[in-house]
């Protein structure tokens, strides 16, 4: 009996019996893992809605008896963050927003431009350039900190000179601008990889048709490539947003004090060594810190999966 015979003779018998057991196992496992991931979030949400006495005195899994939004208000506007004079995390939240939006947009657009050049305007050595950009994805964060600090220091001095000359530093030396620069440079390897692989399957004939139609290099990019890049654009934005928003190392190294991003502020809030640990406030702050990435996944998650698949299987 060949293996083909085995498959055909076995399948009708298996089909009836196995579908129910398989379903129970599959859904059981899925439910289990969903719970494993959801329980911490549930505990966080419940804790953040309890008064402190209920948190320290009661069970972690107990439903709040006296619902209160006070910890959220405290976390946003009142809580003491490390040694800073300013109260609450709202300022740091804004720092992160001011950092993440330009960093994501610039790195994504530059990645798209790199991908466009590496696939549609090939030059001798394009493979080497792409290989080196790919290599950037594997460089550990820690190893670039000192060189980056040197470069940012130099840029800061240029900023001072520019300020003396023109009255404006062009943002050089500003902690948020520094973080944008760091994240754009560090993210470029990934965004280039995403867009190059997407544009590799983008029909060359469209570019040729646009050339014959008289479109310039940037016109082809803006009018033909970009409008047809929605899936990979969303994938890249989600990826970059999550990474940059959640970054702690660069944030804590290059932006101290009041210009620190959300992640650093959250750490300073939670790791305080003075006074009572306000778990409810900490939980509220942690949820606020995680909310933007959660929101991005909820809004664009289906594109994320679709985009990853589109890259994997052509057509």
């Amino acid at each position, binding site marked *: 009996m060949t293996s083909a015979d085995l498959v055909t003779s076995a399948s009708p018998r298996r089909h009836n019996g196995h579908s129910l057991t398989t379903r129970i196992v599959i859904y059981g496992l899925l439910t289990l893992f969903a719970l494993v991931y959801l329980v911490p979030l549930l505990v966080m949400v419940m804790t953040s809605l309890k008064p402190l006495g209920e948190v320290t005195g009661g069970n972690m899994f107990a439903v709040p008896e006296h619902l209160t939004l006070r910890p959220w208000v405290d976390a946003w506007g009142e809580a003491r963050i490390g040694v800073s004079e300013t109260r609450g995390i709202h300022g740091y939240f804004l720092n992160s927003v001011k950092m993440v939006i330009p960093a994501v947009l610039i790195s994504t657009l530059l990645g798209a431009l790199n991908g466009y050049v590496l696939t549609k305007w090939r030059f001798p050595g394009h493979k080497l350039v792409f290989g080196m950009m790919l290599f950037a994805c594997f460089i550990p964060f820690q190893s670039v900190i000192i060189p980056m600090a040197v470069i940012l220091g130099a840029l800061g001095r240029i900023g001072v000179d520019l300020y003396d000359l023109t009255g404006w530093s062009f943002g050089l030396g500003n902690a948020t601008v520094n973080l944008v620069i760091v994240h754009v440079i560090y993210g470029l390897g990934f965004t280039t990889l995403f867009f190059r692989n997407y544009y590799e399957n983008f029909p060359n004939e469209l570019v040729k048709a646009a050339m*014959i139609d008289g479109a310039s290099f940037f016109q082809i990019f803006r009018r033909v490539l970009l409008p047809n890049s929605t899936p990979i654009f969303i994938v890249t934005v989600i990826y970059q947003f999550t990474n940059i928003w959640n970054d702690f190392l660069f944030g804590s190294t290059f932006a101290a004090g009041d210009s620190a991003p959300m992640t650093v502020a959250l750490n300073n809030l939670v790791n305080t060594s003075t006074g009572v640990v306000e778990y409810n406030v900490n939980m509220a702050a942690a949820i606020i810190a995680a909310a933007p990435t959660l929101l991005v996944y909820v809004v664009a998650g289906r594109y994320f999966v679709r985009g990853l698949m589109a890259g994997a299987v052509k057509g």
Partner: protein
Amino acid sequence: MATLEIAALRKRFGTIEVLKGIDITLEKGGFLVLVGPSGCGKSTLLNTIAGLEQISSGEIRIAGNDVSHLHPSKRDIAMVFQSYALYPNMSVAENIGFGMEMRGVPRAERDKAVAAVAKTLQIEHLLSRRPSQLSGGQRQRVAMGRALVRRPSIFLFDEPLSNLDAKLRVDMRIEIKRLHQTTGSTIVYVTHDQIEAMTLATKIAVLKNGELQQVGSPSEIYDRPANTFVADFMGSPAMNLLEGTVTAANGAPRVVIARKEGEPIVLPIPASADAGKLQDGARVIFGIRPEAVNDSESIDRNARSVVKFDATVEIVEPAGSDTFVVIHAAGKELTARMRADADLRRGQNHTFAFNLDKAVLFDPQTTARI
């Protein structure tokens, strides 16, 4: 002055030469078809005319201007691609008008030109649709509309029908021919389909390995192929090519085709061949189209030179309009195109006839026609 002149054109990719010195001219209103097997360089040649590939040496002139190193948009050409290459994010009207938009033509003028082209191609009702909402034939029309709206000196078509199903392909072929006849446009057309080449062209260029094999009218290519490659490539079923020997015994020179069994077939030298070049004992390849092989009653009555021979039927292929009969001759299969109602069966012995007016001879060494 010819609309298109290509002189000594060479194209190298690294060390590989894909176009080895091409010389072609095309008159205004001509329809040049570049045909050949895949990898012969026909698409590369078209891309060099379009300016999408840089040339290594040589010259391309369009309407008298040297365009060899001009940008594609400055060459006064329009191209229809195999995949149509319609911009997926734009409506049909925007697709057709994109070139004019890039050249800064005012909106009102653009809309007027788009409307006029849409009317010619009967796609007015599709103007606001996206390419994804169109059928294959409609996409083809839009792609042609995008080319037509430019009013270029030369239209370039890169295998435009190969993505369509068989029936639509025939319809669009007629459409392109009608377009050519009514507008009098000059067209360069790439295909690997020799029927498209025969039906559309006023001039055919057959390429192989980056070299021109023959340039001529469809009938020249079909009836007087320059070598065995062209003879074999053009026509379906292919031309019969049989090995023979020249003998000058008993007066006039003749071609003798030996057979495994039975008498050899002895033929007078076909009128197309230069008998002066043939020496006694020389080996030749005798080429004859399937339609010039028939039974002795059905052979062309106006034929001046007919030779009859007996052979056994091996395979009978009824194709509807004709019946193809494969017979064994000279150790090689020989195909005859016969009447649809030809009453022949496998194994049957039958008298066939060659119409030698249509026969050609080739030199087996050089493969060139004698």
